[in-house]
């Protein structure tokens, strides 16, 4: 038996710093400032409202000088920082089922462990929960859970589901009545600020400006090569407008800055910037349905760009608002426009509407096919995706594929499995192309 000491393990090489373009750095500063604002609120006296990304009424929230805290974004941040796994297990230890949404469990676990935000400081207890019940059943239970914890005032804003593909007057009237008679009076009471509809109009005007530029950015992917990745990169692009910045001058500046950056890339014929620098040759153009995995975000993205695959359009980049089919916040109809915004978000759309959208992306962006990243703990997205896949395939004649991961639970990200499936999919696209060429 050897008595020699084991060789010392070589020190792990530090992770290579991700390459970021200027807009990403700018956004990082915006997010950092926002988190600092939130964690400083007990000292500044600023009141805090928690709400959700789909159906986020940021313009209205700003009318009452409230700071917007989004638990979904906090869960994403925990996922990206690889803290969510421990949070999820903490929540499960406290009795939350292994079967349910991991955003919720990450949030509940984070709160149980001191509610430390991405800036390393404690996030404030909310003064108000604005339960914008839009496109996701879990939202309702999530805020009932938070209400149990914080015992703070909670407002329900119910967005009816657009099951028949059209927004009806009854739906809009219902939402406007909720806004007028319950949401706004409660916001006034909690904040102590009187509602000023002209102030709302101003914010909505600013929203529309940023939305114009966001759409131009997302649609720049119609170029070949695409200057952006509309899924992995898209997560960054949607950050400010889906978060606490829609309606602000900051958002206008950010999207103008981003658009200029993207236009410059188009002019130079460049592809997207990836964490490893400029992407090489664009070999595959994909449309992706479903949220990403956040615990292995960079590794997941790398599986695409290493193969020369760029995502030209995604449904997830519409989860906090669908703007590329013409909708803009309209300052002339301030409450109605908020209602229509909520009604139109991606997860509030029926499955046939989702199929229409994805099929049109494949056509409009000249994509090679559809890839679905199905999320274990998100029924709103996942239930029905196998039929969506078949329908889009049937309609477009383009191949589709399916991978399975989770939002922020690292136990459900199997890198080898996902990579195998992606590689098979790219081979399928090659074969399809070869078939088309030989038939021509």
């Amino acid at each position, binding site marked *: 038996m050897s008595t020699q000491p084991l060789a010392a393990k070589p020190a792990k090489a530090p992770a290579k710093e991700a390459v970021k373009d200027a807009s990403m750095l700018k956004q990082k500063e915006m997010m950092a400032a926002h988190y600092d604002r939130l964690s400083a609120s007990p000292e500044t006296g600023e009141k805090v409202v928690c709400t959700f990304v789909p159906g986020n009424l940021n313009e209205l929230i700003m009318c009452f000088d409230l700071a917007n805290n989004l638990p979904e974004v906090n869960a994403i941040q925990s996922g990206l920082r690889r803290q969510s796994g421990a949070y999820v297990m903490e929540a499960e230890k406290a009795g939350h089922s292994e079967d349910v949404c991991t955003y919720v469990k990450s949030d509940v676990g984070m709160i149980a462990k001191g509610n430390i935000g991405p800036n390393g400081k404690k996030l404030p207890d909310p003064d108000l929960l604005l339960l914008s019940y839009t496109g996701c059943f879990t939202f309702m239970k999530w805020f009932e859970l938070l209400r149990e914890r914080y015992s703070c005032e909670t407002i329900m804003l*119910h967005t009816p589901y657009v099951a028949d593909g059209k927004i009806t007057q009854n739906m809009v009237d219902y939402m406007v*009545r909720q806004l007028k008679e319950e949401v706004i009076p409660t916001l006034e009471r909690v904040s102590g600020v009187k509602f000023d509809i002209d102030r709302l109009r101003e914010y909505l005007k600013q929203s529309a400006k940023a939305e114009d530029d966001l759409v131009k950015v997302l649609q720049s992917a119609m170029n070949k090569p695409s200057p952006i990745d509309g899924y992995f990169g898209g997560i960054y692009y949607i950050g400010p407008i889906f978060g606490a910045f829609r309606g602000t001058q900051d958002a206008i500046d950010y999207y103008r800055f981003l658009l200029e950056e993207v236009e410059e890339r188009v002019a130079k014929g460049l592809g997207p910037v990836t964490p490893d620098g400029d992407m090489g040759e664009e070999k595959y153009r994909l449309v992706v349905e479903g949220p990403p995995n956040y615990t292995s975000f960079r590794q997941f993205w790398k599986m695409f760009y290493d193969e020369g695959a760029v995502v030209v359009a995604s449904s997830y980049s519409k989860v906090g608002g669908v703007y590329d089919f013409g909708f803009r916040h309209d300052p002339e109809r301030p409450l109605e426009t908020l209602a229509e915004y909520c009604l139109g978000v991606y997860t509030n759309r029926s499955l046939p509407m989702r199929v229409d959208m994805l099929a049109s992306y494949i056509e409009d962006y000249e994509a090679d096919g559809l890839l679905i990243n199905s999320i274990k703990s998100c029924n709103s997205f996942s239930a029905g995706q196998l039929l969506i896949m078949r329908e889009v395939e049937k309609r477009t004649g383009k191949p589709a594929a399916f991978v399975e991961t989770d939002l922020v639970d690292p136990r459900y990200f199997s890198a080898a499995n996902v990579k195998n499936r992606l590689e098979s999919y790219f081979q399928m696209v090659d074969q399809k192309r070869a078939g088309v060429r030989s038939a021509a």
Partner: protein
Amino acid sequence: MTMSGTKVSGTKAIIERCQSLFDDLHFTAAREWKTAKSGRKVIGYMPIYVPREIIHAADMLPLGVLGGGDQLEVIHGDAYYQSYICRIPRSTIELGVSGRLDFVDGMMFPSICDVIRNLSGMWKMMFPDVYVRYFDVPQNYADDIGGSYYVGELAELRDDLGKLRGSPITDDELRNSIEVYNENRKMVGELYDFRAKTPWQAPAAEAYLVLRAGMVLPVEEHTALIADYLAAAKAEKRPMRDNCRIVLTSVFCEQPPLNLIKSLELAGCYVVDDDLLLVTRWLTEDVPTDGDPIQNLADAFLHHSESTAAKYEPNQAEKGQYLVRAVKRTGAEGVIFAAPSFCDPALLDRPMLQNVLSEANIPYIAFKYAENSGQMQPIREQAGTFADSIKLWSAA
């Protein structure tokens, strides 16, 4: 033979009839109803609640579609769902693609969760000739807000079904249907009261089968069936076991296997209340039969309807209190949470309900099932241990 001998055969015959309706995944009874008269139509609905009065008022048969249970082999349905989605949508798809629902003229998908919501869109794509309605209900209970919206939704449903029939549904037809369903709810209430008082006289599996028959039978026939069962069950003397009394909860959507319900009682737990087939008692008071019938249905939904996980509870102090009240009302000694695997409403609500029960010093246990769960031994052991511990605590 005891004096109750004939009565025993009375319940036996009724339960056999209910069991055969339960086992029949081709819905023969509903098919026969449809073919008995030309022009008849059948509207399927899933859990948790639809206003069956409006379907009835259109001379149509409301048909409860509750998945495939443990006897249906799911061949096609699994190809539509990932492994981490509950079983009821896949077996419902199986019922559809295998032709078992080919006589159904419309399907209604209530607002209960995202899976059933999305199934409404799938049904539209897969069965384009069938009337499909996602039935949204308000989560706001103010008359002029949620109430107005709901009146609009009910009016739209009424209009749609009138078009499907070929003539509008009149107010009088609606009033008549409301009356018919008031009767049915009254009889269901009597069944539940009777079981709560004397659970050995109306075993949970029997009460369930009697209630379940109402998913496929015309309501008038179902009301009579409950009355017959109650008369037979009251006349019968059955041995009272040394069981504890429990409320069974979270079983409001995907149905537990019949064996699971039987196993609970065999393990020593009398079920004295439950949230099975809530559609039969969703409205907790009679709906008025005078005035505007649509408004009356809306008012009943807003102000006199059951609490459950699919509904928002605006008042924090009220959260879960319905369960505490059910325990007190029925003299139950504990609560069993039996949730279908991957059921968002039941599983997300459970920690909050358990906290409420803890505060009220009400013991509980929890487990999961699927509609096709076959192995009951672990459930029987868990329920048996629960029953023993309740007896131990109450004796201490």
